[in-house]
C-alpha cells in the first residue's frame, strides 16, 4: 500500500507536469468558444467519461458509480422527466403532470408516438413497470422516498400514476433522474432496447458506440453517432482532449480547465452550481455542538480566497445554504462575510478551548477538497483555532469519518434544489444527516414546504427553510463549484446544466 500511495503521488506530479506543458506551450489567448451558426447535421462525437472497470454497471435500475455508464444509459433510455434550469424539471416521456388536491396522487401524461428502438410502442405499462423496478432495486427507497411499489401504476395507455405516502410537491423532481424506461418484462436489462435519442451499436469493456435514433419523439438529433470512451483517470482524459483523440472530456474539473483552457481549439464549458463544497461541524456533541462556536467558524473563513485557490476560481462563494442553483435560492439573505473579531468574541463567549488543536478530516475524493482543508486550517488559525488537517484515503473517509467525525470537509453534487438537499442532508431523519443536526424549526419548515402546492407559498416556506439553515446548521457551505467539461471548439449545443444535466448530449453537434 505504501508504494501504491507513492505511485499515486508521483502520478499526480506527472499529471501536473503534463498540464503545465499543455498550458505553457501556447501563448495565453482568449479561450476558444463553441461554434456559432445553425447546428450542422452529421458526424460522430467522441466523448470521454470517467469510469472504472470493476465498477461497470449496465443495469439502468442499478446504482451506477461510473460517469461513463450513466452517460451511456442516459442516451439510450429516456426518463420520465429531465433536469432543467428554471423550472427545475422539464418534460421528457411525460409531457405534463398534475397532482390531486392532497398532493399525494400524481398523474403524468405520457408523450404520444413513443417507440422503442425495436419499433414496438412504449406505453404507460412499460413506464410503470420500469419505475416499479427502480423502486424495487437496491437503492429504491432512497431514489423514490415515500413511494411504495403498489403506488406506481399505469392508468390507460398514456397515464402514469404515482402515489406518495405523504403530501409531496416534489414528485416530478424525484423522477428527473434515473427513471430509465425499458420494455415491460425485460429480463436482461444490459443493452435492452430503450426509447432514447440514440441506440446501441456496440458496448465493450465500458466503452460504447451509440447511433442516432431517427424515430426519436423528442426532436431532431444532429449527430450520427456518439462514441463513449471510458477513462480511469482525469489526467489521461484531459490529455486525450488536448491531442484531439476525443472531442469532449466530460466533468474534467477545475485544474484541467485552468491549464488546458489556454490552448487553442479547446473550449471550457462551465456549468454553474454543480457541486457544493462545505465543512461539516457535528452539532449533537463534541467541540462544535455550541451554535456560537459554529457561527464563529463560519465567520472566520475567507470564502473568496477558498474559491480562488481551492477550485481555481471556477465557482462562487456560498452562504451556508445548500441548493445554490435553485431559482428559489435566497439571494436576499446577506452573504456571511469574514469577521475575525466577531469570531474571536463568540469563541470566548462559548468558552471554546483554544489551547488544543482540532482534527479536520479530508480526502481527495473530488478536486479541491483536500486543498480547501489546508486553506481552511490557515484561515482558522487567524481566529486562534488550531487545526490539524488529516488526509484520509477514500474508503477510510467514507467508512469511518463521513457522518461521524466532529469536523470534516464534504461535498454534494446536486445543487438545483434547496428542498432536495434539505431532504437528503439536513432534516433529522435523513440518512446522510452529516452534522447530526436536529432542529425542530427546520424540520417543520421542511415538512411544510414539501406539502405545499401553492408556488408562492412554497417560495416563502423555502425562504424560511434557508434562513434557519443559514443561521444555525452544522454546515459551513463555502463555495459552489462549476462543473467543467473540456471540448474541442468544433462542438456546439453542449449542455450547461449542473450535475447530471451534463449527460444531455442529444442537442450536441459538430461544426466540421
Amino acid at each position: 500500500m505504501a508504494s501504491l500511495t507513492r505511485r499515486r503521488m508521483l502520478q499526480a506530479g506527472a499529471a501536473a507536469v503534463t498540464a503545465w506543458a499543455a498550458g505553457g506551450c501556447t501563448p495565453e489567448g482568449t479561450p476558444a468558444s463553441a461554434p456559432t451558426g445553425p447546428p450542422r447535421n452529421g458526424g460522430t462525437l467522441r466523448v470521454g467519461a470517467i469510469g472504472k472497470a470493476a465498477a461497470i454497471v449496465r443495469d439502468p435500475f442499478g446504482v451506477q458509480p461510473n460517469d461513463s455508464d450513466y452517460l451511456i444509459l442516459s442516451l439510450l433510455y429516456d426518463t420520465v422527466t429531465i433536469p432543467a434550469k428554471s423550472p427545475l424539471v422539464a418534460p421528457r416521456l411525460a409531457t405534463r403532470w398534475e397532482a390531486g388536491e392532497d398532493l399525494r396522487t400524481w398523474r403524468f401524461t405520457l408523450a404520444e408516438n413513443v417507440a422503442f428502438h425495436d419499433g414496438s410502442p412504449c406505453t404507460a405499462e412499460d413506464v410503470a413497470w420500469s419505475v416499479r423496478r427502480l423502486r424495487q432495486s437496491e437503492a429504491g427507497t432512497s431514489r423514490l422516498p415515500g413511494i411504495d411499489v403498489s403506488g406506481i401504476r399505469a392508468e390507460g395507455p398514456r397515464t402514469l400514476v404515482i402515489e406518495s405516502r405523504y403530501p409531496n410537491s416534489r414528485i416530478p423532481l424525484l423522477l428527473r433522474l434515473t427513471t430509465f424506461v425499458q420494455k415491460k418484462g425485460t429480463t436482461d436489462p444490459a443493452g435492452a432496447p430503450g426509447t432514447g435519442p440514440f441506440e446501441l451499436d456496440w458496448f465493450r469493456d465500458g466503452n460504447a458506440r451509440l447511433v442516432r435514433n431517427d424515430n426519436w419523439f423528442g426532436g431532431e438529433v444532429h449527430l450520427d453517432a456518439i462514441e463513449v470512451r471510458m477513462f480511469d483517470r482525469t489526467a489521461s482524459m484531459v490529455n486525450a482532449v488536448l491531442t484531439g483523440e476525443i472531442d469532449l472530456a466530460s466533468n474534467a474539473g477545475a485544474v484541467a480547465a485552468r491549464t488546458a483552457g489556454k490552448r487553442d481549439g479547446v473550449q471550457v464549458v462551465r456549468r454553474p452550481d454543480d457541486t457544493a463544497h462545505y465543512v461539516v461541524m457535528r452539532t449533537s456533541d463534541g467541540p462544535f455542538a455550541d451554535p456560537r462556536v459554529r457561527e464563529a467558524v463560519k465567520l472566520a473563513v475567507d470564502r473568496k480566497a477558498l474559491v480562488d485557490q481551492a477550485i481555481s476560481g471556477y465557482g462562487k462563494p456560498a452562504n451556508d445554504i445548500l441548493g445554490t442553483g435553485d431559482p428559489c435560492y435566497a439571494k436576499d439573505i446577506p452573504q456571511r462575510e469574514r469577521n475575525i473579531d466577531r469570531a474571536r468574541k463568540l469563541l470566548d463567549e462559548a468558552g471554546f478551548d483554544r489551547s488544543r488543536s482540532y482534527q479536520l478530516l479530508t480526502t481527495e475524493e473530488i478536486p479541491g477538497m483536500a486543498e480547501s482543508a489546508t486553506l481552511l486550517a490557515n484561515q482558522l488559525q487567524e481566529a486562534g483555532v488550531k487545526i490539524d488537517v488529516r488526509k484520509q484515503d477514500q474508503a477510510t473517509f467514507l467508512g469511518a469519518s463521513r457522518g461521524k467525525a466532529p469536523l470534516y470537509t464534504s461535498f454534494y453534487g446536486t445543487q438545483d434544489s434547496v428542498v432536495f438537499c434539505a431532504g437528503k442532508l439536513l432534516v433529522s431523519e435523513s440518512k446522510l444527516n452529516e452534522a447530526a443536526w436536529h432542529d425542530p424549526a427546520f424540520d417543520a419548515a421542511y415538512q411544510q414546504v414539501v406539502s405545499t402546492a401553492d408556488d408562492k407559498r412554497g417560495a416563502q416556506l423555502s425562504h424560511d427553510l434557508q434562513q434557519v439553515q443559514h443561521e444555525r446548521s452544522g454546515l459551513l457551505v463555502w463555495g459552489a463549484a462549476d462543473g467543467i467539461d473540456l471540448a474541442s471548439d468544433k462542438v456546439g449545443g453542449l449542455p450547461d446544466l449542473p450535475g447530471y444535466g451534463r449527460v444531455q448530449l442529444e442537442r450536441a453537434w459538430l461544426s466540421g
Partner: protein
Amino acid sequence: MIPHRTTRVLGQLTRRVVTLVALLAITFFAVEVLPGDAVVSSLSQDASDAEFAARRAALGLDQPVLARFWHWIAGVFSGDLGTTARGQHIADLVLGRLPQTMLLGGTALVVTVLAALALGSLCVLRPGGRADRAIAGTAMVALALPEFAVATALVVVFAIWLRVLPAATGTAATSPVALVLPVIALALPQIGWNTRVVRAAFGEQLGTPHVDAAVLDGLSRRRILTHYLLPGAAPTIAAAAATSVGMVLGGAVTIEAIFNFPGLGSVLIDAVQHRDAPLVAAVVALTGALITVVLIGCDAVRAWAGGGR
C-alpha cells in the same frame, strides 16, 4: 537420473506454489487491515443501514477473514476466482484484461532484451571506445529514470506538442500505434539496467581462455559474439531479464494509469482503493503465476547454457 530430476522439478514447483499461496494470504490480510470496507465503497452514500447489512452479508463480510480467505482459495483451486464487491465475476473481469497487460509487458520485455543485446554487443566490439562509453553512460541514466517521468515526457513531446502519437489508449485491441509510447516508457529504464548487465557479462567472457583462443584463431567478430560470448553470458542475461519481468509488471500499474491502458494495473489500483480483497488477490495470483512461469523458463535457460558448455 530422470527420477532424480523429476523429484527436483516437482520440489521446485511445490515450493513455488506454496510461496504463491502464502503471498495471496498476505495480500488478503493486508487488504483486511486497511480501514473501511468494500460495502461502504460500493453502495451509494445514502443507502439505508438495512441495505448495508444485506450487502455485507451477501459478500460474506460478516464472516471472519480466515474463513473468507479459505473459501476464496478453495474456489481458486477449482477454477473459481469469486466475485467483486459489486457482484461481477472476477474471472470475466481479470481474464478479459490479462491479455492486454501481457501484450504491453511482453512487448516491453522483448524490446528490452533485443535492445540490451544490441547495445551490449556494440559496447563489447570496442571496449572503452566512444560508443561503449556513450552507451554505458546513457544506460546508467536510463535505469535511474522512473517510468512515470518517462511516460509524462513522452506524452508531452510526442502526443501534445508533436501530435504524432496518441496519449491515451482506448478500448482493448486498438491500433498498435497506441502501444508505442507505453512500451517505450515501460522498457526504457529496463533497457538501461539490462544493457549494463549484458555489457558486464560479455566483458567477463572476454577474459576467458576459450574466447582468447577464438580471437587468436582469427574468427569473425560476429561468430565470436554468437558462439563464444553469448552462451557463457546467457545465464546472467536471462537472470537479469527475469528480474525485469517483475519490474515491468510493477511498472505497468503506473503506465496503464497514465495511458488509460485497459489492463490489470488500473483494476488493481481500484481494487485496493475499494478494499475488494478477492479482486486484489486474484490480480496478484495471476501476475504471481505469470512471474513463476517466467522464473521456471529462466531456470531452463540457465540449465541449457550450463549443460551446453
